[in-house]
């Protein structure tokens, strides 16, 4: 008899609790990528996650590391304090688009611009999943939702927010990448991005965010397969994948170094405190 070999197992950073996600929802895939990355970095015992209000509200039951459930949109503020109290810990928030880019936009922008050494895992499904499919800040023009029944009318509802592009302008951001999960190659790429963000955090480089363009088959009213198709056809051209900020690629050790270089002609910035 051949010797048994484990080729695939549940990441240690996931609990054994079955998730409540709808069939075909990609939240579960992203949880797995987060957990695998933490395992590979050997950081399960040092990790503290902050769950949002949204479909992933119960993430505190699914990750086996210490977890905190935050108020809607406030995860970046909670994570900020958790990291300040225990800077040696790996601190991440896990947030949806309504949580991150609508009610929590102020917290998002300010945690980023402060250069908090935290990692934000951002699941963008262009809809409010948990509350039954209302228009989100990331809902595409003409996309039909419960509260944009005739399609998002940009004359009235304005335009979606491109989060990575917006945050990339801020000096505190060390790393911002947009990825997706539409096929195995994309999933592998998403995992790499998440792991890199965690590594950057532990190396003290600054704020890191990975945006995952995902689906919500239930509230998009599609089969999981059709949802992936719609994502590829509409979401990806609107939310182009790629690295929006990587201070190391830009030749700097940290976001702080990059910020200093950018302001090299400003005496107050380069001269230090009198």
């Amino acid at each position: 008899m051949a010797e048994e070999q484990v080729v695939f197992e549940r990441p240690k950073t996931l609990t054994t609790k079955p998730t409540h996600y709808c069939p075909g929802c990609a939240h579960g895939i992203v949880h797995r990528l987060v957990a695998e990355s933490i395992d590979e970095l050997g950081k399960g015992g040092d990790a503290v996650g902050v769950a949002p209000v949204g479909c992933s509200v119960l993430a505190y039951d699914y990750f086996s590391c210490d977890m905190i459930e935050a108020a809607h949109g406030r995860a970046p503020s909670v994570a900020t304090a958790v990291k300040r109290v225990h800077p040696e810990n790996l601190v991440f928030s896990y947030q949806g688009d309504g949580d991150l880019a609508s009610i929590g936009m102020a917290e998002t922008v300010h945690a980023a611009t402060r250069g908090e050494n935290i990692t934000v895992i951002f699941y963008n499904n262009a809809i409010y999943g948990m509350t039954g499919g209302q228009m989100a800040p990331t809902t595409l023009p003409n996309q039909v939702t419960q509260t944009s029944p005739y399609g998002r009318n940009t004359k009235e509802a304005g335009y979606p927010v491109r989060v990575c592009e917006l945050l990339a302008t801020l000096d505190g951001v060390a790393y911002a990448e947009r990825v997706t999960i539409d096929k195995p190659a994309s999933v592998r790429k998403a995992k790499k991005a998440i792991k890199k963000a965690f590594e950057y955090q532990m190396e003290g480089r600054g704020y890191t965010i990975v945006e995952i363009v995902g689906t919500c088959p239930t509230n998009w009213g599609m089969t999981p397969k059709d949802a992936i198709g719609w994502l590829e056809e509409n979401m990806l051209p609107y939310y182009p994948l790629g690295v929006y900020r990587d201070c190391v690629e830009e030749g700097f050790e940290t976001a702080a170094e990059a910020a200093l270089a950018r302001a090299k002609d400003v005496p107050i910035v380069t001269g230090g405190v009198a």
Partner: protein
Amino acid sequence: MGEKVLMKGNEALAAAAVRAGCRFYFGYPITPQTELAAYMSKIMPKVGGTFLQAESEISAINMLYGAAAAGARAMTSSSSPGVSLKGEGISYMAGADLPGVIVNVERGGPGLGSIQPSQQDYWQATRAMGHGDFFQIVYAPNTVQEMADMIFTAFEKADEYLTPVMILADGLLGQMMEPVELPDEIGELPEKPWATTGTKGKREHNIANSLYLQSNELEAKLLERAKRYEIILDKEQQSEGFMLDDAEIVLVAFGASSRIARSAVVKAREEGIKVGLLRPITLWPFPAKALEATMGTAKAYLSVEMNMGQMVDDVRLVVGKDVPVEHFGRTGGIIPTPDEVLEAIRTLNAKVGE
């Protein structure tokens, strides 16, 4: 205890908080609590602590929530309009049984109101700090010394009962200078085995959370917390009595207005009116036992407040309808004079005295 130093109430409070082991302060600028944040921004870097000016009071209170979950002694401070924004986070703290200290240096309201001292947030602090069935312990200092002492106690009680604790001060106490003896630096802080510090591979994961999707679980949690509230109601009532032994008219006043009420009591006694003062030090739990003890001699009660009449409700709840319970107050940021209060005592005395 060390020597006495002259300090503003806001600064004494900040200095004592640091001695109570507070190393994390989160706030957003607002008058009249400015000196508190300014003091924290100076001292925290020197004691290895964190001062963080948040982008809003909402963010600041959620930072407090995070720091508390992570096991730190932490606080935030603001004034009335900013405290309203903190309501969300305080409710979440109560729901997740997280300890933390919130300071409200009250100003006039509603809305933007005024920047002058007021006591208009009594109801908010004691009844409706946020949504859901919960209470917070509320302390009402009336001297700079008490500002220092009570912040110390506030941190201890927050950790003991796993609850948010509020110091309800006002612009008068915050800005006033008085000699103060700061408490000694605390030694050991309590263990917090429930904190989200990272499992370090040594225990099951800790979760800070206020969500209970099963109604029976939420009800059980609320009932468990209510038992803690019972203990607080029984053990933590604090008040100070002044000339109450034979008092036929009992004034009830807290914070800045208790100082004015006390002067009025002294003047009224000179006129032969049998009047005394009960000063609630804890607003929740309201000192019902001490107030009940005055009912033997009291013919009438006068609640003196810098508002339109809020604490007077609690006085009525305790003493009932058999004797008159009246309110005297100035509001909108106006501080009553002792003579105004004296006049109110005389009027009430004429009504109920023989």
